[in-house]
């Protein structure tokens, strides 16, 4: 082969390769543009149909979603939020339509698929459609080998928001397959409060929720208390106040923390008492929670905590004093000349940070 021939051949091959590669890129862009357009249009149309109860459009979309991954995602994303806006009757009609067309059975089958992406997507759609059987179908997925599937099951059970879902999530908390924080953030709603309180106060119920035959470990209780705090519901106040007497520090910390958002003025007395807890973590949380109920009667106890051994207790006490109006600010100003240097420094910083006096 001559040099010229070799050059020509190489140039030709490279040129051909380049044309092919550019074509691929352009084709991908065109296809993606088209898919996005179709997806957007179908989501809009489906949302309108869901709200108007147009069963024909829903039926077509559900039929497509049985085995088309993109349509399944479109259906789930559209259902997300929209289904909750429907009346009970409209929702029942929707469930009837998607069941008749075979979507629910198809999704149930996909929950057992060996591909975790399929399982996750199916759990996502089942949850967003608020299928009545979801409370039974999703709990086993909390122990799925794939972390994404476990998390989507947890999220959807939180979205369903029934007592059965709440109990499943508490059971998941005891099993420990999902990080407690992920379950707590899903349980943190008013809908879950009765179940959470029952689980805390009824040992029989707690035993029935524990996985296997073993007694549930006590580690789930602080998590439930945290969830009650996230729910910020006064119905939890009594149970949380009782928890402050627990022999376990973690439980007392969680209860003191949650009494901030979930407590009422009635909690102030127990929180003031908690300022004298032997564990500094409890004192720090109690000081912080008192800022949610700024009452003058807490001032003396908080002022005393300005010279606490623990930095966090001093810091939280000072911040809370700054929120209690004139009495609190006066206490902070008094602390400027405190014999304990740490107390005076804390007071000075807090007054400056809250723009109550110049630093």
């Amino acid at each position, binding site marked *: *082969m001559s*040099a010229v021939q*070799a*050059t020509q051949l*190489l140039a030709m*091959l*490279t040129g051909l*390769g*380049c044309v092919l*590669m*550019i074509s*691929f*890129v*352009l084709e*991908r*862009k065109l296809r*993606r543009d088209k898919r996005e357009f179709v997806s957007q249009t179908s989501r809009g149309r489906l949302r309108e149909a869901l709200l108007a109860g147009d069963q024909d459009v829903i039926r077509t979309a559900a039929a497509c979603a049985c085995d088309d*991954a993109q349509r399944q*995602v479109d259906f*789930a*994303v559209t259902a997300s939020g929209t289904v909750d806006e429907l009346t009970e009757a409209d929702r029942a009609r929707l469930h009837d339509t998607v069941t008749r067309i075979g979507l629910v059975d198809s999704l149930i089958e996909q929950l057992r698929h060996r591909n975790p*992406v399929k399982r*996750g*997507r199916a*759990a*996502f759609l089942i949850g967003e459609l608020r299928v009545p059987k979801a409370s039974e179908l999703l709990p086993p997925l909390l122990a799925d080998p794939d*972390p*994404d599937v476990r*998390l*989507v099951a947890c*999220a959807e059970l939180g979205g369903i928001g029934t007592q059965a879902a709440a109990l499943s999530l508490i059971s998941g908390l005891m099993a420990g397959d999902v*990080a407690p*924080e*992920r379950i*707590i*953030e899903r349980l943190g709603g008013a809908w879950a409060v009765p179940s959470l309180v029952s689980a805390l106060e009824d040992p029989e119920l707690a035993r029935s929720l524990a996985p296997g035959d073993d007694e549930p470990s006590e580690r789930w209780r602080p998590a439930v208390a*945290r969830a009650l705090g*996230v729910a910020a519901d006064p119905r939890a106040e009594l149970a949380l106040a009782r928890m402050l007497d627990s022999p376990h520090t973690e439980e007392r910390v969680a209860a003191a923390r949650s009494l901030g958002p979930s407590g009422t003025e009635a909690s102030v007395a127990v929180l003031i008492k908690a300022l004298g807890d032997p564990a500094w973590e409890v004192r720090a949380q109690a000081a912080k929670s008192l800022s949610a109920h700024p009452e003058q009667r807490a001032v003396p106890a908080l002022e005393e905590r300005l010279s606490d051994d623990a*930095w966090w207790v001093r810091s939280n006490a000072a911040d809370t004093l700054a929120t209690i109006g004139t009495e609190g600010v006066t206490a902070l100003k008094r602390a400027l000349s405190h014999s304990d240097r740490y107390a005076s*420094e804390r007071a000075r*910083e807090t007054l*400056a*940070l*809250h*723009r109550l006096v110049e*630093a």
Partner: protein
Amino acid sequence: MTDVIHQLLRDFNIFMLGYFVVLDSVFVLLVAIGWRAVNEYVARRPFRDYRKVGESELSMPVSILVPAYNEGPVIVSSVRSLLTSQFGELEVVVINDGSTDDTLTSLMEAFDLVRVDRVPRANLPCEPISAVYVSSSDHRIVVLDKANGGKADSLNAGIRYARYPLFCAIDADTMLDPGALARLVWEFQASPSTVAVGGIVRVVNGSEVDGDGRLVQVKTPRGMLVNLQIVEYLRAFLGGRIGWSRLGMLLIISGAFGLFRRDVVVEAGGYDTTTVGEDAELVLRLHRHQRDRKRKCRITFFPDPICWTEAPADFKTFVRQRDRWQRGLIEMMARHHGMLGRKRYGGVGLVALPYFIFFEVLGPIFEVLGYAACIAGVLVGAISYPFALVILGFSVFFGLLISFSVLLMEERAFRRYPDWQDLRRLIVAAFVENLGYRQLNTLIRVRAWWTLFHAEGWGEMTRVGLEEAEPVEA
């Protein structure tokens, strides 16, 4: 004598052909693995609730560390931009590294800083810190004022005073996508053995940015040098790091954007202040530290969180940046050569390090010698013209294949450049990148060897500006 030279040239050219075959095969393999990972990510993305991670008060809180040296004009908008991140609990720790401009004054005026008394939470070496300030208008802003010590030293100071279990190291002139932190934190929450996560860094030049430092519209610029870097960044991040990450052998996390577990970094000794590549060095040290203690060590790359940074638009700055990156890489490999080939370090010691030493550290020298030997071989008749073309063509063709593959990946998964004009520019850049730019880059990287021994001295502390980003080699 002539015969010996001919034989040497022939042998070296055959070696170079083999070199390119292996190098390009590794690249193709990494791109293939990257494709698989991106496809899986795209499939899982719809049911991953990143929004909740950003909203939840139970998500792992993050301290964002912003080292600032003479960043007066940009620091206030940069902090404001960071505070708009869609992430619940964060603090922004600005470390004023002995700036000689109005960096500290600007911060004090903009955020009503109040001097406070804080006790450091970790014992890491750093230059003396003269004052700690907290904003009275937004308590999430903390400012450390310290003597000049360089970027690594500033980051160590920031880690000492950071409150939260995760810290994100970023450059003062970079911008984060609002949802970026939530997505990175998700990785830590999904897998407790995660020690560090890197995110993709993209080039902001040409895009529209508003007064608060927020990105309004992504566009490619007109200048070819920046477009070449855009393709190069895509190639490095989508084509290289995803692949290495998937194999559990990621060695580089961008200094412009990475999230780390604070306790592990403190235990490992923080950033090394005596190297110019402190970001990459830290990652390698974390691998070593964790594996020496027989702990699980997940250091991964997440393709979707985005940090936007400005790439050098002029040739002089570009050369300086690349020179520094290459020196950082050489230093990093020299310091951790003890990990090389050691079974204890798994894939990092057995595969990634040998690859980096052979193809990234020594590679530029081989390549330059290879091009020279190829030309000399043809001129003296030691090798045939077609054989020389095969060597050259092989290198160019696979380069093009990889560049176009990452453009495809970008279109498939992320579509950050939705305009046709941007795509056209990137396609042109993908060509030019393989027909001159890469070769030029190789020359700059060879020059870095010279700089290392002649200009700076081995291991000598180099004071660098804080405006530059990080190595982007695969």
